[in-house]
């Protein structure tokens, strides 16, 4: 069986001592930082991104992936114990998780969240292994026109579904595309938008934009209010869920995993929508929905499984098509590009050790999470007492030293400072920065494919509609736009997105 051979290859890579160590560091550091209140996966990955660039490709991606699901998991710990979601995906976990903690059942809530995440992670890993190769196979048939339409679909989906204000989100994507093409044009050798600065003719560093928008601007936003930080004072007694808890949880975990996997694999949806839909589903099929919101364990199990499954499955389009579905995936893709790996279906054939090694390491990483989190929960709880006034200068330390390490040049630091100001202004004006980074990563690729498609078709733009696969992507894009503009759906969407807007 091919899948089996591939997984064996993957585990051989992932189980090498060096990669195990990096996986462990990633998961540990990710959880460590993810647990800290107010710091979500995007900030965590952005601030640690430069560090991983100094490693070889495989360990660096393994570590980044570890940081990602570590931070995701750490976020749920904070949600359950303190009602403080680090990011949109754990907002729903707060609802019942925090209630359970208040009732003195924080232990079982944390345990079920860990087990649910682990089981969902296993399924997610398997799904990538199963669906990755056929999707990549299909993607090999893509020409420039198909790629352009696919990127258009991915970007529009991300802008329309994942963010608060769709119009602004699309504008942010376009701004990202524009920023992405700063630098020397590959076709003509012309330096564009470089304003005579030689550093800019190499393009704006992807890491610079990422740290500025997701770390520095976020810090400023957190500091603008003078609200006192809440401190967790409760105690955690006993992790073991009761038999009734387990009986209620397992079906919920299975349903959450299915819902999360589905939304995770779609571009633009990801963990937040996955977790929310899973919670809604639980509430709908429960015999007594009034229990939800009062500390029902299913309300923890299902969304936690869903957000981890979604986090895992988001790697499917990223690894096989080179199309990131979310801000975090855009960061992963950017990291791959900087490591010299061109994203796309060829990753699987050209770097099978990387692809399968990464997948195997995700499973191992999920296992580590389970082992790390349950016994160490007392230690994580202590972290919740660290005040933000110690945290934010420390994050800035990573940002500064890390950005400086890219080119050993202060110009990068000044650029980061400039983008931080811009990023903060955008946040205040209700424009989310995540769509920008998606556009930024895809900008050069999109231009290249548009050029090539129209060159081959001799300037005939109907090429995007006459090739069937491309037409399919265009149709989905159009449908998405219609659905989003239709007022009835708009109203409903508002309801669904509303709780995730708070982050």
């Amino acid at each position, binding site marked *: 069986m091919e899948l089996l051979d591939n997984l064996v290859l993957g585990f051989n890579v992932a189980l090498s001592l060096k990669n195990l160590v990096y996986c462990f560091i990633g998961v540990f550091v990710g959880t460590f930082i993810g647990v800290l209140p107010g710091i979500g996966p995007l900030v965590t990955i952005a601030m640690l991104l430069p560090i991983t660039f100094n490693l070889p490709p495989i360990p660096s991606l393994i570590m980044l992936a570890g940081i990602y699901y570590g931070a995701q998991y750490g976020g749920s710990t904070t949600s359950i114990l303190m009602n403080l979601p680090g990011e949109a995906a754990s907002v729903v976990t707060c609802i019942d998780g925090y209630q359970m903690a208040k009732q003195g059942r924080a232990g079982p809530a944390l345990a079920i969240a860990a087990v649910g995440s682990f089981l969902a992670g296993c399924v997610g890993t398997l799904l990538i292994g199963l669906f990755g190769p056929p999707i990549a196979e299909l993607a090999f048939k893509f020409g420039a026109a198909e790629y352009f339409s696919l990127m258009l679909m991915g970007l529009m989906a991300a802008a329309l579904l994942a963010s608060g204000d769709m119009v602004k989100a699309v504008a942010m994507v376009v701004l990202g595309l524009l920023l992405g093409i700063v630098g020397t044009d590959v076709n003509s050798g012309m330096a564009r938008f470089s304003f005579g600065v030689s550093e800019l003719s190499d393009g704006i560093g992807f890491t610079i934009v990422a740290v500025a928008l997701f770390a520095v601007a976020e810090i400023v936003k957190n500091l*603008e209010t003078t609200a006192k930080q809440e401190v967790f004072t409760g105690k955690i007694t006993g992790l073991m869920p009761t038999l009734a808890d387990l009986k209620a949880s397992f079906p919920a975990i299975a349903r959450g995993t299915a819902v999360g996997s589905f939304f995770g694999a779609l571009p633009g949806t990801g963990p937040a929508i996955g977790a929310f839909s899973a919670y809604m589903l639980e509430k709908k099929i429960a015999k007594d929905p009034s229990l939800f919101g009062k500390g029902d364990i299913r309300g923890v199990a299902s969304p936690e499984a869903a957000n981890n499954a979604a986090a895992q499955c988001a790697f499917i389009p990223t690894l096989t098509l080179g199309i990131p579905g979310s801000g975090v995936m855009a960061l992963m893709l950017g990291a791959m590009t900087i490591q010299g790996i061109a994203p796309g279906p060829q990753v699987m054939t050209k770097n099978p050790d990387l692809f399968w090694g990464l997948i195997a390491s995700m499973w191992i990483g999920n296992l580590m999470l389970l082992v790390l989190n349950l016994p160490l929960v007392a230690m994580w709880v202590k972290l919740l007492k660290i005040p933000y006034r110690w945290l934010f200068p420390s994050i800035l330390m990573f940002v500064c*030293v890390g950005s400086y*390490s890219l080119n050993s040049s202060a110009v990068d630091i000044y650029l980061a400072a400039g983008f931080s100001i811009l990023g903060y202004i955008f946040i205040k004006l209700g424009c989310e920065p995540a769509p920008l980074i998606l556009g930024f990563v895809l900008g050069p690729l999109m231009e290249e494919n548009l*050029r090539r498609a129209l060159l081959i078709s001799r300037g005939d733009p109907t090429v995007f509609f006459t090739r069937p696969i491309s037409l399919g992507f265009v149709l989905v894009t159009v449908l998405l736009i219609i659905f989003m503009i239709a007022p009835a759906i708009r109203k409903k969407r508002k309801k669904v997105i509303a709780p995730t807007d708070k982050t």
Partner: protein
Amino acid sequence: MKIELRNNKDFFAGLLFIVIGVLAMVIARNYPFGSTMRMGPGYFPTVLGGIMTAFGLYVLVRGLIKGEKIEGVWGIRPLILTVLGVVAFGFIMDRLGMVLALVAMFFISAFGGHEFKFKEVLILAVVMTAAAWGIFIYGLGLPYRLFWWS
């Protein structure tokens, strides 16, 4: 009817998009536009600039109609101090090495927080600078100078 522009969220977001979009189109005029079949380096940015301007106009007009306000307050103090801390780091790092650069960064940015306790910031700066040495110089082997003489 008086149109309130102060803190009008969409008006300023739209304005910002328009300024960037128009700027992109104007600058892109210096690059050959080419044709749809053979696009020059100016083609894509011009089209993007146009799309941005259009979206900007829509958002701006929506702002005028709805007049939605910016939520919360502007964190001018933390913005200036964190950005200044970052800039100071870059400036000093090039000239005097990592230790002073980080100490300056810690003190300036910590001043942007809610509470500033000198002793606490000093300890934080020392501990985190040591950590930076451990991670970046010792661990990752980056060729940074600790001080200007090293």
